[in-house]
């Protein structure tokens, strides 16, 4: 191509490159009529160039959003500047099959699109090139990565046996809720409970039975609380729940309901039918509570009293009078 002169022979192989390169290439004239349609486009669309050349692109492909497409093309023409769209904005310009239709995970081809202004000798943009890149593999790895990260986040926050929040993450949530309540002065309550005579369950029926009791207890807790409440497994047989926007009376109703549901149920494991109860301590948020730690201590104190008062009951923490 020395001196800008293209010989006929060169033109031939240059066109061959454009035809056979594994990238979609379309050229549109001012009326959006197709001027170039390379083999990538023909093969993936199933439309040979004779069916497309000189036809209005938007009529051949009515699924392409016309306003969006025209806006892109006109801005490229006016500014003589390239425009890009990525698969994240819009998965595809034309819906093509996945290049690997059998083993590929994606249903269709994800595409990055580049619009290129093609200027004539007079400097006018007479044609617009549209380049389609197959980025399905990139899109799929990105989606896999995001799914894996979500799963990892879930794993790092949850307790495997109970599927509740683990202690570490639950304490973070408690910090957050405590700070929020300090600012809003709204109502809030903390419930702490444990399974009565849990050691006996393990000793009598074995640890797998004990695990099943933990699972069932967590299940009842999840069913009884609201979506916005935050439950966690605090220790071996010890559970906690932050009841958001809930004052003492509401928290007591919640605790009492959970207590009666657990007391009424029978857990079956192997041939055993296991019945058990829980004791619960409730502590309402008050201005005088100065730290999440102190709030937990209040709930723990109430739980202690429930145990000593004979178990299978709910105790509300009583703040010392006059302080």
């Amino acid at each position, binding site marked *: 191509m020395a001196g800008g002169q293209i010989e006929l022979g060169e033109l031939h192989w240059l066109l061959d490159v454009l035809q056979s390169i594994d990238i979609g290439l379309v050229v549109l004239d001012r009326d959006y009529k197709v001027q170039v349609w390379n083999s990538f486009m023909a093969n993936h669309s199933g439309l040979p160039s004779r069916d497309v050349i000189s036809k209005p692109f938007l009529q051949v492909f009515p699924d392409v959003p016309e306003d969006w497409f025209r806006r892109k093309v006109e801005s490229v023409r006016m500014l003589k500047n390239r425009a890009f769209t990525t698969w994240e904005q819009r998965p595809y310009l034309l819906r093509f099959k996945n290049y690997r239709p059998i083993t590929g995970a994606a249903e269709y081809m994800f595409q990055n699109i580049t619009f290129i202004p093609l200027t004539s000798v007079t400097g006018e943009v007479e044609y617009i090139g549209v380049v389609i890149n197959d980025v399905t*593999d990139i899109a799929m790895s990105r989606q896999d990565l995001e799914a894996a990260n979500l799963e990892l986040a879930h794993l790092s926050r949850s307790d495997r046996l109970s599927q509740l929040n683990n202690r570490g993450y639950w304490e973070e949530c408690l910090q957050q809720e405590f700070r929020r309540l300090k600012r809003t002065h709204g109502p809030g309550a903390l419930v702490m409970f444990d399974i009565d005579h849990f050691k006996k369950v393990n000793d009598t029926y074995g640890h797998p039975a004990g695990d099943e009791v933990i699972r069932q207890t967590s299940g009842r807790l999840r069913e009884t609380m609201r979506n916005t409440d935050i439950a966690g497994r605090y220790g071996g047989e010890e559970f906690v729940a932050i009841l958001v926007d809930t004052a003492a009376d509401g928290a007591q109703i919640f605790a009492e309901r959970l207590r009666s549901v657990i007391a009424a149920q029978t857990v079956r494991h192997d041939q055993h039918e296991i019945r058990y109860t829980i004791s619960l301590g409730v502590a309402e948020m008050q201005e005088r509570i100065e730290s999440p730690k102190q709030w937990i201590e209040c709930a723990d104190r109430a739980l202690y009293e429930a145990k000593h008062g004979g178990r299978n009951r709910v105790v509300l923490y009583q703040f010392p009078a006059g302080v």
Partner: protein
Amino acid sequence: MPTPVLICDDSSFARKQMARALPKGWDVEVSFAGNGAEALDAIKAGKADILFLDLNMPVMDGYEALAAIRAQDLPTLTIVVSGDIQPEAQARVTQLGAMAFLKKPVGEEEIAQVLTQYGIRGTDKADAAPVQVEVDIRDGYKEVANVAMGQAADFLARLLNVFVLMPVPHVNMIDSADLRMALSAVAVGQNVSAVCQGFIGAGIAGEALLLFHESSFQDIAELTQYQGKIDGNAELELLMDMANILIGACLKGLADQLEVSFSQGPPVVLGRHVQVSDLLKGNTLRWKQTLAIEMGYRIENRKISCDLLLLLTEDSIASLNKRLQYLIG
């Protein structure tokens, strides 16, 4: 008097293609055989002054048939018509007494040329009726696969200077639920490395999947005179080289026969040193059925074996069938 001509090929599609390519107006009496053993019977019955003989066939293949013809001194002139076009295959059949060797798919002109060359064409008959052959479309898939496979084997044979053994390809419709099982059956108990490459064109879309048996790396390295240690990188290099040759040649062979051209995506390594059953683990397959064409390659006197599978989408079949119909008129 019409010349008795015998066409021996296991594929009904190939028999029809061959019969169609006989010179128009040549006064012949055409019979057919599905393997070498049937051909020997037909020759003995005087039905084969001229024998068009395929090489890869079940029961008795073309090489065995040629050997038997020579041993029993049977009266026939044999023209081998083969998808296996390796130089070594040509040399072997010539040595076994074949008069000529034609590459599949065979054209009218090539046949006419050979017949003229050997002074065979005698009397013409003006109103020769076209020969009727019943064709099973699956034989068509098998035949184009066989020819494509032969072109790939020829590349490999010339590159490595070896003789590639080519069994008859298998053609099956496979449910997505059974694909893993079908793959496992290809390489039982073996660890494999797998590369796949998508292709699409003229309404035909699919994937070429190369399963390379683990035990083959050392021999391939020797044959390609690979210098240096065979570590993970070297293996990947060898694997990709094999994939390029076999998939590229096979797809080109297929496209040429169907008179289409395919776009080919980049090759993707599906797994290395894994059980075949683990290759597609975790993939949700979105299709119901695939047309699977399985081609096994072995290299004579070497521990090299690999399988090339062409998996075509269900919606490709209509277009494929249409193009196969063109080939046999």
